[in-house]
């Protein structure tokens, strides 16, 4: 049995999914978190069920890429039960999607989530009445406590067993007449496309571009007929046909809302409404923004360096001890040393910064603060030819470039997606943060690390400007829901960080250890010299030691490798003895910007295609090289 969760963004779908699947998906408090669907298998009453969490979507008209994913899935995949999750505190608006889903004629179940929020607002919903109107069962839930979710699953079984598909809602008489005519006209085509005829008719009257194109390719004459119907509706109502249909649906949803909702008291005063008076204030908003990010990075740095120093000292001692047991010049010693250095790199350098960083990021995401950042920074994003929504992929980019590139799907225009994706890969992800903190901050001081971040932002601005000049097109502009603030639950924060950390532990760390051993062996047989001389055209103009060449190559695999490998390639933990401060800075600048890591290249490839990915690689390399070159000659002024 296949169950899909469908709902508008932020209705608590991921939370429900996580609860069901034992925390595997990532919940966030901003629209568009689930940008790709997540699957999981679970047992209900002993039946094996496949449960799919589809990206949040406001409607079944395709506007952004994430929403299209949901629609495509619903229209093409076999689905046994649709679980339509609604934010009960926003019932009126949420019902619009429900009305569209009913048109798909699939067994369906309504879940009123966030019942606690609705009650806080003084809203009581008569579920029986709602169930009667829509013709499908309705269940109330509070996802984060798990309340009602068992009920939900049992009801899903029942809906499937009895094939409860609900009843489609009729629009007003004159509109309905046009809809009926078009439904008849598209009957044959709808069977070919395997889309319910009435659903298809409504979407065509709403001028759905994807479906219009499909019709044009299989039955061009039908499209002329549809265009006539669109014009007819427009003449009757004095509004474009898409507005006529969507307004009708909106009115229907509002009527149902009026019928099933009882306002039992005026909403409780909520301090959360007051927070925005400061957090989105025209002056204080920016102060808060600066404080939040300053606090965030100091915390990560403080916690990280507090742990890093003693741990690294410990590993150094282990390595010293090792020399008693194995002859230092033997291959065995080299292999063991490489392994220990790989392990040490993980425990000593990456984890101390990664854990507080990921937890902090999860906290920011779940609190609902990020859309506020989009609001405050929208004007600046316009300067580089984008709009405020791009800030969300950018901020995710500080965690990892892969989800950042994927999150560009929340953007409407292809050009915005491309520019945002390329810029997001230039943002220092947590792996590069480790390099900045472990190298620049550790050896040159925190002020320099901060300077690296700030100059990164400036370069981002310049790069954005260059890209938007190369690809001139007007951005459609910002349109984003403002979610209510929520106190993130410790459980979600922990699971979300763990989910991302696991990726490091099971994928990156083994690569780190193996890479470290390989480098040791390469050095043993002096093969690294060959690679280093091949990298000479890069390292020489930048004035870097020849030995860093290999680390740059490894860095393309995983950015963390650059740092750990650097320490190993130079043969010391005390980098200052072999590199000048200027060289450290040049190296870091180069590593921060040059070629995205393998995983990111793969993600880019999927999102923007091969040609643009190759462009992104060259673009980032050019930036890295130019900046590092400048740093080489300007750094003597600093130190």
């Amino acid at each position: 049995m296949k169950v899909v969760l469908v709902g508008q963004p932020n209705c608590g779908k991921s939370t429900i999914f996580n609860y069901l699947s034992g925390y595997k998906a990532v919940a966030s408090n901003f629209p568009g978190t689930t940008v790709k669907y997540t699957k999981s298998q679970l047992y209900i009453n002993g039946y094996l069920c496949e449960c799919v969490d589809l990206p949040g979507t406001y409607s079944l008209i395709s506007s952004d890429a994430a929403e299209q994913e949901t629609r495509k899935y619903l229209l093409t995949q076999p689905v046994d039960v649709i679980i339509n999750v609604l934010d009960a505190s926003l019932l009126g608006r949420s019902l619009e999607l429900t009305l569209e889903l009913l048109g798909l004629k699939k067994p369906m179940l309504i879940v009123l989530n966030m019942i606690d929020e609705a009650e806080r607002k003084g809203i009581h919903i008569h579920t029986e009445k709602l169930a009667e109107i829509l013709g499908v069962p309705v269940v109330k839930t509070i996802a984060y406590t798990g309340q009602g979710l068992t009920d939900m699953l049992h009801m899903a079984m029942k809906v499937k067993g009895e094939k409860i598909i609900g009843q489609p809602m009729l629009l007003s008489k004159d509109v309905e007449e046009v809809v009926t005519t078009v439904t008849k006209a598209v009957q044959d085509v709808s069977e070919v496309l395997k889309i319910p005829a009435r659903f298809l008719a409504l979407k065509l009257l709403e001028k759905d571009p994807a479906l219009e194109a499909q019709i044009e390719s299989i039955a061009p004459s039908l499209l002329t007929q549809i265009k006539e119907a669109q014009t007819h509706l427009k003449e009757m109502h004095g509004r474009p046909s898409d507005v006529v249909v969507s307004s009708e649906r909106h009115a229907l949803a509002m009527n149902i809302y009026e019928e099933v909702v009882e306002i039992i008291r005026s909403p409780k005063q909520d301090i959360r409404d007051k927070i925005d008076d400061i957090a989105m204030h025209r002056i204080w908003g920016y102060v808060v923004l600066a404080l939040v990010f300053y606090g965030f990075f100091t915390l990560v740095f403080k916690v990280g360096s507090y742990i890093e120093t003693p741990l690294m000292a410990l590993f150094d001692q282990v390595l010293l001890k090792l020399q008693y047991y194995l002859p230092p010049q033997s291959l065995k010693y080299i292999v063991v040393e490489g392994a220990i250095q790989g392990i040490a790199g993980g425990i000593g350098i990456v984890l101390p910064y990664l854990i507080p960083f990921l937890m902090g990021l999860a906290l920011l995401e779940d609190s609902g603060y990020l859309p506020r950042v989009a609001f405050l920074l929208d004007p600046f994003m316009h300067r580089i030819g984008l709009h405020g929504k791009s800030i969300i992929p950018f901020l995710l980019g500080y965690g990892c470039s892969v989800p950042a590139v994927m999150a560009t799907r929340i953007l409407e225009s292809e050009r915005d997606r491309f520019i945002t994706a390329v810029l997001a890969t230039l943002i220092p992800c947590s792996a590069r943060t480790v390099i900045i903190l472990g190298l620049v901050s550790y050896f040159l001081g925190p002020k320099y690390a901060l300077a690296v971040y700030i100059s990164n932002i400036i370069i981002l601005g310049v790069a954005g400007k260059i890209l938007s000049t190369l690809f001139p097109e007007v951005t459609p502009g910002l349109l984003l829901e403002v979610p209510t603030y929520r106190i993130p639950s410790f459980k979600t924060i922990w699971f979300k960080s763990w989910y991302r950390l696991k990726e490091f532990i099971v994928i990156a760390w083994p690569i780190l250890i193996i890479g470290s051993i390989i480098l040791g062996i390469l050095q043993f047989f002096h093969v690294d010299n060959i690679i280093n001389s091949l990298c000479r055209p890069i390292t020489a103009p930048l004035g870097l030691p020849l030995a860093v060449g290999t680390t740059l190559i490894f860095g393309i695999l995983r950015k963390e490798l650059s740092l750990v490998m650097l320490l190993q390639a130079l043969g010391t933990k005390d980098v200052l003895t072999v590199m000048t401060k200027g060289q450290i800075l040049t190296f870091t600048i180069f590593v921060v910007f040059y070629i995205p890591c393998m995983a990111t290249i793969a993600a880019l490839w999927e999102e923007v295609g091969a040609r643009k990915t190759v462009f992104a690689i060259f673009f980032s390399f050019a930036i890295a090289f130019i900046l590092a070159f400048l740093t080489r000659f300007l750094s003597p002024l600093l130190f």
Partner: protein
Amino acid sequence: MRIRLDAVSPGKKVKVIMVEGGVRCRQCLGEMGVYPGETLQVIRSAPFAGPIMVETNGSRFMLGRGMAAKIIVEEMD
């Protein structure tokens, strides 16, 4: 009096008369609850000609000036 939404000052309530612009734009705004006849309240606006924040039917959203200028509204008292 009919004006465009970007000219409405914070705190004011307005009624939507019509939405200009292409199908895509109308659909996206519809998803946020902007339909002819609905009431909107402008909550605040960002500096530097930034976006405005609007409330309708209990939900809040932000929209850029460019998009706000496509919504023709009538002030209510």
